[in-house]
């Protein structure tokens, strides 16, 4: 620690404005060779924007960037690549219809007019073996799992000689085991003097992956900590700006009658391949059943068959004792199903319509909001005002187009509508995804409230902590099958992780306890 090496990367006073939003406000970061820097912050804190500035996707309004001590201007991702900076984005930058090798060389500087793909493939194999990653260079991206695609992204950057890797919430799509593998890859890389910036909003990951952490809030870097000298509680306080409750109080609840029953349900996905296979479970009144699994293992299709958006190819669905297999969404709503979809603005709300209209979208068919097809705007507005107050939806007015609200407030509006209309079963798909700590807390509280009021809740989530905190039982989906259902009070994260990777319940429990 006697002599300070020069930082491999330094960003000074970066300011970036979007219309109406100050995304980065004089943000500073510094990173040294062989180190991982975590950028911690809530959604909208400006982490991704700052990194997009670094890779040249956004132009900063103010500020300077220094790489290896030299002042640089980065106008495009290829400028960044030339400086050895590469980013693994949240939405992978891979073309699905192309092979791994084609994706890895795509847009590279100095590529031959007729690229020798076999030579490229051999080089990819070498790098992959060096980092203990397993990838077939000739596979098409659409054939790969999300975890494999992430490996391709990392390989791509290394192939192109990146010295500074930026990872934007890389673990969101991984099983716990895959996250450990990623941590190992990063260790090998840093031991070779490469550096990484790790964007996250999870404190545990900061602790596991990084050497240093910079906490961002509202576009500003509010603090810099050495990871070994801090703890998750302190980080959470810095990130949110106040103390956060980590444990929600879950009251004991006595499950009542069965509300939802699935019997041997089968369904296909869009490609005609099986998405759900032999799925059976029940949910009772006052019970939350969590569905865990890596994204893309049938969660979406499960929610869709229960809400009437997808036909089952076999099996039965009963709601409050009545058979409702393959009924229309409207029948399902009338049978008592409420739905909080994963895609908020696509399926949950109409972006270009007013908050009030979005709130009325379920009750508008019946009095008092409508009379024989004629809407009563005054009553709709009244209803909206009531909901906005009850659910603390931050909106300039009920007439504001809902797309201008933050993700958390859009979600609150959808929750308000669905909970108000709920007559038995609430299907919540990734309800806290992408929300900041505050909004997540309020979503979870609402779900527990529903449970306390005797409703049945199906909670699909990719966050195991969330499932363990608020669900009563957790079913794990893998390739459309239920690998097992465990009680959440004695659930073990490692066992769940193995089940998410396709290990049946008994084996998973035996392996992790033994």
């Amino acid at each position: 620690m006697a002599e300070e090496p020069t930082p491999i990367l330094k960003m000074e006073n970066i300011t970036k404005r979007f219309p109406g939003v100050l995304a980065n406000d004089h943000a500073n970061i510094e990173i040294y060779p062989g180190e991982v820097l975590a950028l911690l912050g809530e959604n909208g804190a400006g982490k991704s924007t700052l990194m997009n500035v670094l890779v040249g996707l956004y132009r900063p309004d103010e500020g300077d960037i220094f790489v290896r001590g030299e002042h640089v201007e980065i106008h495009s991702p290829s400028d960044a690549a030339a400086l050895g900076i590469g980013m693994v984005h949240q939405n992978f930058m891979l073309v699905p219809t192309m092979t791994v090798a084609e994706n890895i060389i795509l847009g590279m500087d100095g590529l031959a007019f007729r690229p020798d793909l076999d030579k490229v493939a051999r080089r990819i194999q070498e790098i992959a073996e060096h980092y203990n990653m397993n990838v077939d260079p000739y596979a098409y991206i659409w054939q790969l799992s999300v975890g494999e695609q992430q490996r391709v992204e990392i390989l791509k950057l290394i192939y192109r000689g990146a010295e500074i890797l930026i990872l934007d919430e890389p673990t969101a799509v991984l099983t716990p085991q895959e996250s450990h593998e990623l941590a190992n890859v990063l260790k090998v890389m840093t031991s070779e003097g490469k550096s990484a910036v790790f964007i996250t909003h999870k404190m545990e990951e900061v602790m596991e992956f990084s050497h240093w952490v910079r906490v961002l809030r509202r576009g500003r870097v509010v603090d810099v900590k050495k990871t070994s000298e801090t703890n998750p509680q302190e980080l959470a306080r810095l990130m949110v700006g106040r103390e956060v409750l980590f444990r929600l109080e879950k009251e004991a609840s006595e499950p009542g009658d069965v509300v939802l029953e699935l019997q041997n349900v089968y369904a296909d996905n869009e490609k005609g391949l099986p998405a759900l296979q032999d799925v059976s479970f029940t949910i009772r009144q006052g019970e939350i059943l969590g569905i865990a699994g890596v994204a893309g293992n049938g969660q979406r299709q499960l929610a869709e068959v229960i809400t009437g958006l997808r036909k089952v190819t076999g099996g039965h669905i009963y709601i409050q004792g009545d058979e409702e297999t393959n009924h229309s969404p409207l029948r399902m709503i009338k049978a008592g199903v409420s739905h909080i979809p994963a895609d908020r603005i696509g399926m949950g709300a109409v972006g270009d319509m007013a908050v009030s209209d979005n709130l009325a979208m379920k009750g508008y068919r019946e009095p008092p909001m409508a009379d024989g097809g004629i809407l009563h705007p005054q009553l709709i507005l009244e209803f909206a005002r009531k909901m906005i107050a009850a659910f603390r939806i931050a909106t300039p007015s009920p007439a504001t187009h809902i797309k201008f609200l933050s993700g958390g407030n859009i979600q609150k509006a959808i929750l308000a509508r669905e909970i108000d209309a709920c007559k038995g079963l609430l299907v919540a798909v990734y309800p806290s995804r992408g929300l900041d700590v505050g909004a997540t807390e309020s979503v979870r509280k609402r779900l527990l409230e529903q449970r306390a009021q005797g409703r049945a809740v199906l909670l699909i989530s990719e966050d195991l902590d969330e499932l363990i905190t608020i669900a009563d039982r957790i079913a794990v989906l893998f390739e459309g099958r239920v690998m097992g259902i465990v009680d959440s009070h004695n659930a073990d994260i490692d066992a769940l992780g193995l089940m998410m990777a396709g290990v049946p319940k008994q084996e998973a429990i035996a392996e992790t306890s033994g």
Partner: protein
Amino acid sequence: MTEFSALLTSILTITLQAGTSLTYATLGEIYTERSGVLNLGLEGMMLLGAVTAFATSYYTDNPWLAVLVAIIVGGLLATVHAFLTVTMRANQVVSGLSITLFGTGMANFLGQRLGPPEYGGNLVGLVAESFRPTPIPFLSGIPVLGALFKQDILTYGLYILIPLAWYYLYKTRNGLNLRAVGEDPQTADAMGINVFQVRYLYTIFGGMLVGLGGAHLSLAYAPGWTENITGGRGWIVIALVIFAMWNPARAILGAILFGGINAVQFRLQAAGTTFPAAVLNMLPYLLTIIVLVIMTWWEALSKRVGAPAALSKAYMREDK
């Protein structure tokens, strides 16, 4: 036997003649759509290509110059489309339809004005230097397949252009970039490919081929100018691109299919069939509908048809 082979030869000959303009335009549109730009302006671009080519040839007696003019005209109209849809991010369908409407009207107007004053400016009925079939010695003597080598020079050009277009798209760096831009412009951009440049380039290049297709109509297939000389070929090409599944190597298939219908129609009419001509004339369009139905059904069966994923979507980098 000889009579049958003579019949086959003649059908194949007409098929290729009729298919040439379709193939040029299909290749052009495949390249344009591969970059993510849908150009529905083909009909208007082919018409303007045809009329300007014919007028040029009439005045200069140089059909090569005429082809060049048609290529430039096609490229210019495509530039307008690229400006509207890539730079201004206008709706591609609306822009394309406007270009067709404009091109059709403009071509008709020019057809009545570009002619010599003594004919009142009318181009209809005039004769200009054109591309005649130039049989290749020896090869054209092969039974039936010899028809391949009794074509005009523009058709021969396709024999070189199709494999080149395929090779370029699938085997070269530039082809890789082009495919990436049409599939996933965000990714292409992040990988340092200039999405706007690629879209402009291939929209214009595609337009040039479409203009060339139009020139083949008025300079070789049916030498001369008549209003609506394309007879809806610009629309058929849109379906042919789907039929070819955006693969240049398959562009020839659709052209043979549709050119073949033309040829059969020709033979039937020549043979004095009692079948109503109007029904025969409907055949290509009927087939277009059938092709679209089949391809949609194919896609519903979850087979990869291969439409570029970003087709007809405008791209903007800081899309918040």
